[in-house]
């Protein structure tokens, strides 16, 4: 980088940060109510995952709203399972690829992709198609299989979860984009935005044994929040989640939800899945903790059909 470019970009980033700070504190850099976005949520239906994202992000003012020039971006899809894309246990690779492309177009310096997988990570990265898709457009696909990649963080105010070990990428990147896939879940009834964070941490077992629903909500308190949540509802696993057994578990919904509020995103996703929001305990808990808004009626939602 030339010195002139460096000065330009740092002045730009500084101004952006300064502007955001003046609008209401450091938290605003990460939290839901990003002032720059026109809508709280954009829902798209009827296209391919990549085309729907093109349209959705445009409605939110383009990727430039979330990613500044020279920033490092972390994209966290769900890559938890060793299955092929058609079985929809992992985020659609086409969607991940298109988000990366938008990040680079917005001037991202580096885009990283990882997940702490449940099945063998090498197989998950490969068979999900995400590793190949992400690398093909220049993102760095980083392993998350070893504790040495994870660092201790504190979660002040957490009721059950007061600390966790998160992947170093979450700490080292400037922008965090959460890209879950909507699925049925065997015990929490649904996995989407909030539950996708279990792939950011090392010790998932602790969550399971210490009130899973409360831990999921508690983690959302952590300061590094997603700048944007992109919910993949193209193929949706409506039963036998989160892993699925066969194609009979999948319903083609051809939809996508983009939102800066992950609690609202989960609420909308619950509607898509046809599960009452109250049944998915971590959503009302997170709502009460002030981590987002599950009342979709009070949100400014843009709905688009392609």
């Amino acid at each position, binding site marked *: 980088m030339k010195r002139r470019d460096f000065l330009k970009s740092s002045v730009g980033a500084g101004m952006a940060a300064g502007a955001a700070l003046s609008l209401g504190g450091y938290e605003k850099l990460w939290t839901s109510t990003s002032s720059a976005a026109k809508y709280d949520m954009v829902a798209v239906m009827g296209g391919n995952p990549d085309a729907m994202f093109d349209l959705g992000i445009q409605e939110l003012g383009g990727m430039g709203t979330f990613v500044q020039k020279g920033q490092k971006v972390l994209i966290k899809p769900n890559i938890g399972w060793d299955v092929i894309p058609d079985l929809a246990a992992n985020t659609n690779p086409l969607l991940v690829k298109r988000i990366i492309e938008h990040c680079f177009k917005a001037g991202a310096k580096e885009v990283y992709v990882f997940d702490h997988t449940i099945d063998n990570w090498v197989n998950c990265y490969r068979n999900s198609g995400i590793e190949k898709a992400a690398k093909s457009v220049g993102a760095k696909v980083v392993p998350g*299989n070893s504790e040495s990649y994870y660092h201790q963080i504190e979660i002040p105010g957490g009721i059950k979860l007061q600390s966790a070990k998160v992947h170093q990428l979450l700490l080292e990147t400037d922008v965090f984009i959460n890209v879950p896939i909507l699925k049925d879940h065997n015990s929490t009834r649904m996995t989407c935005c909030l539950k996708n964070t279990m792939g950011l941490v090392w010790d998932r*077992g602790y969550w399971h044994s210490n009130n899973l629903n409360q831990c999921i909500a508690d983690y959302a308190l952590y300061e590094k929040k997603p700048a944007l949540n992109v919910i993949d509802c193209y193929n949706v696993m409506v039963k036998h989640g989160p892993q699925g057994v066969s194609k009979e578990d999948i319903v083609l*919904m051809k939809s996508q939800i983009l939102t800066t509020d992950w609690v609202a995103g989960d609420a909308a996703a619950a509607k898509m899945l046809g599960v009452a929001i109250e049944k998915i305990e971590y959503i009302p808990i997170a709502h009460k903790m002030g981590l987002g808004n599950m009342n979709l009626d009070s949100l400014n939602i843009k709905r688009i059909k392609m």
Partner: protein
Amino acid sequence: MRSPLLRRTRIVFSTLIFICFFLVFVDFKNLIPAEYINILLFLQFIPSVIKFYNLETLAAAGFLVVLVLTLLSGRTYCSFLCPLGIGQDLFSRIGGHFKRKFRRYGFKRPFTVLRYSLLAITLIVTLIWGIYMITLLDPYSIFGRFMTYFARPAVIVINNFLAGILGKFDIYTLSNVPVKRFSLIVYFVPAAFFILVGVLSFTKGRLYCNMICPVGTLLGLLSKVSLLRIKFDEKACTRCGRCSLGCKSSCIDFLKYDVDVTRCVDCFNCINTCQDKALSFGIVKLKKKVHETDESKRKIIAGSFLLLFGLSRVSNGQQKTAPIPKKDSTVKENKTHPVCPPGGVAIEDFNKDCTACSLCISACPNGVLHPAFTQYGIAGMMQPVMDYHKSFCTYNCTICTEICPTNALHPLVLEAKKLTQLGKAIFIKDNCIVKTEKTACGACSESCPTKAVHMIPYEGNLLIPEVTDDICIGCGHCEYACPTIPYKAIFVNGNAVHVAAKKPVNVESDIKTPVEFPF
């Protein structure tokens, strides 16, 4: 033949073989396809014998090739194909550098009683009781254990060190690999043998091969009638003795112009050493041999236990830290059978055929295979057993079944493996978080690939696991994922004989493709 090329060929060929074996065992990224591994393993004597005995197919007849080779040229196998033998050559070469000038082996009397007793005991024990002696003494299996328990962890530690450095520079081509940690006791046998074989080869060349190894002794017997062998040109020989001093098998009695073919491993070092060009490799007319006893010293090998345990702690690998639930679980898991790896079919048969070479333990990409301690009884010590507290069997994987050199693990195609029930999951409700803590968990059911473990309504909004055991394949993912300690709330009890699991039945959901947003 008197060409120096003989020795060079041997060195180049054996080095390649050794490198191949080394790579196969340390290949922690599973880059080498199973077909290549099987080609390499084809000529390993003991595994081939066992495989042939089980399958009666020429595809497993590598040992016949070895026998023919032995009839032709003596113990060529020991220098060219045996990874343990080649490893010993490497050791004695290093040992040689610690001595000034060159190492003086000299002619030694063979340990006739000892080596033939060991061969006889091995044969008798194997025929009457089972595979124990072969497990203990098969050179390939010994080598396999050295690689699995010492070399591989060492390589992974180096990899992790490099991965850590590269990671600092934002390069992720190398990734951190967890080092498999086995219980300390299983390191005892390989460590004892490592010291025994290591010390003997370091100081005495091929003494292990000529004193203990039953394969070496057997091939040595056969070599008595081999066609090609090292021979003296008595007219050219000046009795300088260099050949004998440089012979790592200590089998050249230059005063009698005699080479003990039962111990000669065809290394061809003597041909190059001889300045008088009196030694060559060719057809020899058998002549009456007068046996003269010669005093030789035996040294007792004392292994330090402290050193054993030191060796076993080669690494501080990455291990999942155990989660800490509020209360300890109370009900003990009651396993009546251990879980035998896929392809093992019947535990009893598996125990008879496995030589504990540990190749499957090395190759398992998920680290679920562990050397048994007492799970199979003393008979099956070091044989692989599924350890579901450490890991689980990957649904989409058949690697262990594809590479087993003795066919103790029969090959399974993926579709068959996915329907092979290694054991059955058993749910212990009194240990379950859902019951003890009254909070949601479902880690077991989440991980179940067939949904044999599924959730049913419990108190309030809670769901609790239930097992449909006819579709359970015993992969152990539920047991691994279960966060309770010290006892799991769900565990897999092994099947004494693997059976076919039912295919999960699945019907389409009522939910249809939406046309409008439901919000």
